[in-house]
Every structure is written in C-alpha cells, then in structure tokens.
C-alpha cells in the first residue's frame, strides 16, 4: 500500500447525462486513486465510460454525484474559474490528435499554459525548454507542429501536459493515431515521466499500451468490473448492479 498522498482521488463518482427515462449513466460509482509515480490505465469497450471518467477526473466535466479530489483540492468546491486555474496549474491533457497549436513552435506550445497562468513569457519559455529537455526533445523546440512526426507531436503534448507545476496527466487514447512502434515510444516517455514522480491516468482500448501501467482498471457500463494490482478503495466499494 502506498503511503503518499494520492495525486488524484475519485470517490464513488457518478455521471449521468440527461434525466428520467432518457438518462444515460456514463459512470456509476467509480472509485480510484492515482499516486505520485503511478500510471493507471483505464480499459473498456467503447461506451463503457472511459473518456467520461477521464474528463471528470481532470475537471473538464463535473460528476453528478461523488467527489473528485486533486492533491488536497475537492473539485466540487471550485467554480468554473477555479477549475480552469486548477487545470492550468495541476492537470495536463493529452489527446489522440495531439492538439498542438499549428502557429506556435513546440516550445511556445509547451509554454502556453504557463503564460495563460500569468507567468512572464521569458520564464515560461525557459520552463518549456526545461520540460522538452527532460524528454530529450530539445532539437524540436523551435519546430512547428507540421514539421514534426505524429510521435514527436505527441511527445511535445506530453511535455506540455507536465510543464511547470503540473504533475498529473490525463491521456485519452494518446496512441490512437500512431503505429505500434511510435505508440510504444510515446508510452515509454509517459512511463519515464511517471517514474520521475508524475501521475498519469491513461485511457486506452489497446492492452499492449495498458501493459505500461502500474495498474489497469476495467470499466464496463460505467462500473469498474475488475482491476489488476491492489487499490484498497476499489475493493471496498463493490459496485451496485
């Protein structure tokens, strides 16, 4: 059992879209923790609630019931502005299609969340270069996205997700657009950043990438049906069927 404070905690999280007869229960009582240094993969068929789980955990969406806690901040206590600030400082997202801004260089893309957060441009750029350097991407710092391969863009996106004070990365099918070799390179980088102390939640439908995680959580119809490894919380909360 890990004794450090979890980076992320989900406690009995529900997310329902719509009401009454038409209600869709995307998540039904999901609990899990991600600790510093841990990469947790979420697997499940399409429609099982994987992406909803990631969006709720990262503060892009709010649960209809239950709590999401990042560090020592309960997300339910934040208004929209507070959530946006938390995302700028604490959580980074990585998506299948990289989402880099085409008119900015790699270093500018990585420094963007810091600048949006009010950091002076010069400091932000320096930190961005540090983040790229940590991942062996210094050569790419001044390149624009269209001059980079998919794998390189995704590694830049990971650098952006973990720049500055951000220590939690939400990765939604980050290998979806990549061939298996490049996908593996991206996972290797994500794994390395987690080994250095970051925390990651990885949504994937491909078990070969889930193999890089410390723990794998299986979702089906919004319920955690099984998990590898031991997360004490999951065992306590047998989902209501």
């Amino acid at each position: 059992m890990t004794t450090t404070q979890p980076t992320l905690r989900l406690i009995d999280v529900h997310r329902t879209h719509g009401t009454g007869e038409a209600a869709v229960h995307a998540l039904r009582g999901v609990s899990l923790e991600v600790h510093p240094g841990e990469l947790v993969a979420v697997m499940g068929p399409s429609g099982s609630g994987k992406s909803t789980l990631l969006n709720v955990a990262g503060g892009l969406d709010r649960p209809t019931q239950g709590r999401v806690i990042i560090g020592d901040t309960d997300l339910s206590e934040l208004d929209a502005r507070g959530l946006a600030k938390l995302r700028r400082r604490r959580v980074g997202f990585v998506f299948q299609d990289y989402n880099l801004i085409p008119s900015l260089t790699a270093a500018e893309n990585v420094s963007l969340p810091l600048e949006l957060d009010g950091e002076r441009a010069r400091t932000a750029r320096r930190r961005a270069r540090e983040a790229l350097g940590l991942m062996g991407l210094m050569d790419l710092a001044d390149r624009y996205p269209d001059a980079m391969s998919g794998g390189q863009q995704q590694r830049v996106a990971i650098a952006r997700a973990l720049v500055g004070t951000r220590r939690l990365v939400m990765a939604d099918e980050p290998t979806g657009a990549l061939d298996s070799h490049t996908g593996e390179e991206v996972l290797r980088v994500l794994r390395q950043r987690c080994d250095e102390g970051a925390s990651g939640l990885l949504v994937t439908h491909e078990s070969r990438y889930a193999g890089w995680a410390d723990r794998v959580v299986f979702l089906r119809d919004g319920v955690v049906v099984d998990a590898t490894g031991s997360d004490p919380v999951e065992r306590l909360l047998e989902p209501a069927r």
Partner: protein
Amino acid sequence: MSVKYGLLALLATGPMYGARLRAEFEARTGGTWPLNVGQVYTTLGRLERDGLVESVGEADEEGRISYRLTEQGRREIAQWWEAPVDRSSTPRDELVIKLALAVTVPGIDVERVVQTQRAATVRHLQDLTRLKHQAVTDRAGDSDQTQSAGANEHAWRLVLDNLIFAAEAEVRWLDHVEADLAREARRAKTTAQPTHTEPTLTATPPTHATEPAIPGTRTP
C-alpha cells in the same frame, strides 16, 4: 516445435557440443523455452542415428563431444528455412477449452471467468512490457556490446514482442467473449418476454411486454 530444428540451425553455424548448443539456444530466445542438457543430448543422439549430424573426432579433455551437420542435415535445415511452419494442427489451449466448457456447463459464472482471466493476462502483459522496457533500456546504455550479444538481444526483443502480441490477442478475444455474452443475455431476455404474455393472448397485452428491448438499458 521440436528441439531438432533448433539444434540443426545452430550446428549450421559450426560444430558445437551439447552444453554449448543449449547455451546458444537459450541466449537467442532469452531463456523463454529452457532446455535441459539431457534433452539436448537425447536429440543429438536421434539426429546422429538419422544421419543428420555426426560427432567431430574424440571427446576433449573435459569429455565433451562436438557435433556437426552431415550433408543430409544441411538439406534438412535448408528445407526447414524454406517451408512455412505447420499451423494446421491446433494445440490444445486450456483457456479456450475452459471457456467453451463454461458456456455449456450450467451454473458457471462465465463473466467472472472472463474477468479473472483478463486481469491475469493483463498482469502478464505488464510483466512482459517491463521486460521489454528493460531490454530496450539496457541496449541504450550499452553501446560497446559485441555483435553477437547485440544480435541475441535483438532476438530476445522479438521474442518478447511475440509474447506481448499473443497476450494482447488473448485480451481482445476475452473482450469479444464478454461482449458476446452480453448480447446473448439480451437476446435471451427478448425472446423470453413473449412467453409471459401467453396467458393474456386473448386480452390486450400489457404495453411493456411489447416494447422492444433497448440494448444497453437495464431494468432498475
């Protein structure tokens, strides 16, 4: 695969004695399929009897006898390289048999069987991924390794990839089984519904019994 072709392929690179053959086989396959030296000598004995290998001179001071390929042995191994590996016979797979039985034997929680297996297979996949990660990291950190050590490491990575792909395929199949079970359960529910309305066939059936079952919805 029999040990036979493994030994013939190694002997094609030059004469070797039993313990060396075993060490070479394991080094090239990362020890994934360990051989015991007895197995190697029994196989060498058979290969010699069949005229595919022959001993080279006398035993050395440690009592080891080297073997080399005969002309017939060379032809045999050349044929092996040229022909595809036979896939027509299906080896018994315990998991496949277990699930086939699980869906036919009453009272088995098939979903549970699937979930337990999937968690175990993904754990296995995690172990393999760690080994692969290690192999790649070792290669990056060791730039002055010998050529043969490099080739063996390459072979080991490919073996690991194969095991990873196999585990991945198993997880995909288990996902498929799970989805299939859910579909079958829904179908069973739909076909079971009209029988409840049989006694009221002459009367207007209750509306809920005629509503089509919507996949993915559950009765509370």
